[in-house]
């Protein structure tokens, strides 16, 4: 594998290989005082974030460092991007400076694909760490890792993704990956927060949360992305929360074994009530922990083999 740009097109064997590697890495690091593997010694990983992020950037940085890669972080403010340098020129500069892997987050959908195109004839790998409203493949992989841990597998499992599907790259990546791994996905959202063409996705769509919850093995909540909203998508936060927020009453509608996921950052009181976020049913901190192992696995699959110039 040279790049990880989307979960669309990632086949079942590739996805399972990455998840298995993540499991083994977790096991190899368990209880160790020195959490450092020599595997990527001498490789250079550059994170290039054109949008704010806490967990994704930090967990990629930790993942790279735990595998002994040199990790350099570039953000749009504080780099030549703020002087008007284009994405292409910045990428070529980082490649020329010696990047083996560029991890990019960008507000424009498709940015990571363009970047991979520009770096086509080089040995540099590209990881999409979130591009606009398109995809965020490592988030989906860590969600799948967390669900595998908690549920023992994904085949035939029922997972509801609730909230702002329209603006969510997490939802898109998860729909592709979870269905590839054999899960049945239901999207629950008001009609205004569903993308056009959703009827062609391999999912069931519902506008009503209460009736969907009793049959689910997991619920994934999405943040309402105010920064991407230009019009009125729902009357008020309060109304949204009443109609779609996962509160204590709704938590009780779920089967006992069901898991609650949230990709973060959470808006407590909006899409998720505080008591739910802090309940043992929520796997939100496990998601972050698994995120490090999954990103280590992705770096391993991209960088620890002979060079491909595809």
């Amino acid at each position, binding site marked *: 594998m040279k790049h990880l740009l989307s979960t669309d097109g990632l086949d079942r064997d590739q996805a399972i290989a990455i998840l*298995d590697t993540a499991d*083994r890495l977790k096991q190899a690091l368990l209880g*160790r005082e020195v959490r450092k*593997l*020599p595997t990527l010694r001498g490789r250079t990983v550059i994170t290039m974030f054109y949008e704010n992020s806490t967990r994704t950037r930090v967990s990629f940085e930790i993942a790279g460092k735990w595998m002994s890669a040199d990790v350099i972080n570039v953000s749009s403010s504080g780099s030549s991007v703020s002087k008007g340098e284009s994405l292409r020129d910045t990428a070529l500069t980082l490649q020329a400076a010696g990047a083996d892997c560029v991890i990019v987050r960008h507000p424009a959908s498709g940015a990571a694909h363009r970047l991979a195109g520009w770096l086509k004839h080089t040995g540099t790998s590209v990881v999409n760490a979130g591009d606009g409203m398109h995809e965020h493949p490592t988030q989906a992989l860590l969600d799948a890792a967390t669900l595998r841990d908690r549920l023992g597998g994904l085949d035939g499992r029922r997972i509801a993704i609730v909230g702002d599907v329209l603006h969510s790259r997490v939802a898109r990546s998860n729909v592709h990956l979870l269905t590839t791994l054999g899960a049945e996905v239901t999207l629950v959202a008001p009609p205004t927060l569903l993308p056009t063409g959703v009827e062609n996705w391999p999912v069931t769509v519902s506008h009503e949360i209460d009736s969907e919850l009793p049959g689910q093995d997991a619920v994934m909540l999405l943040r309402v992305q105010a920064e991407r909203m230009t019009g009125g998508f729902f009357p008020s936060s309060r109304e949204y929360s009443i109609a779609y927020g996962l509160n204590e009453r709704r938590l009780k509608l779920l089967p006992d074994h069901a898991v609650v996921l949230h990709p973060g950052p959470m808006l407590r009181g909006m899409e998720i009530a505080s008591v739910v976020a802090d309940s043992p049913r929520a796997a939100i901190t496990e998601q972050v922990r698994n995120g490090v192992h999954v990103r280590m696995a992705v770096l391993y699959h991209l960088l620890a*083999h002979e*060079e491909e110039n595809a």
Partner: protein
Amino acid sequence: MASRQRGATDPAGDREILSAGDVARTVARMAHQIIEKTALDAPSAPDVVLMGIPSRGAPLARRLAAKIAEFSGRTVHEGTLDITLYRDDLRRGPTRPLETTKLPEGGIDDKLVVLVDDVLFSGRTIRAALDALRDHGRPRAVQLAVLVDRGHRELPIRADYVGKNLPTSKTEDVVVMLDEFDGRDGVVLK
């Protein structure tokens, strides 16, 4: 299969080096040697743990631990140590899947660790295993047990316990088969 003569070459050019019975006897002899060399049956015996290197070192370590318990009455804990992340040739082939790492009960600090593998060849696997061990703790000493030593070392490494010394040419392939993976025990030179 049982009637096949040891050392006989079959039409494919494969030569049987150890039969299933030979493998069992060899493992038993190695267990005796480990007991003797580590003075496991003495009252002041050291804490010995076995660490099998996947894939085939892992079941060999389990078998040795069982034999040691049978012969000495002492329980030795065993674990598995995957060395893939420590290899020096990861960039010379396709992505290698990782195997299981499981430390023995009680860890490896201050223990006498016996690394167990099926074939000793260049010695690079063992170098990687020594690096991996160092990240998991600080053993009192490390020894090496292998079922087959086929020569052609590329590093200053030798085994403390050898089941079978087998002179080979570099182009030959030593195939160790174990019931756990291959449905039968045996060693074949291809």
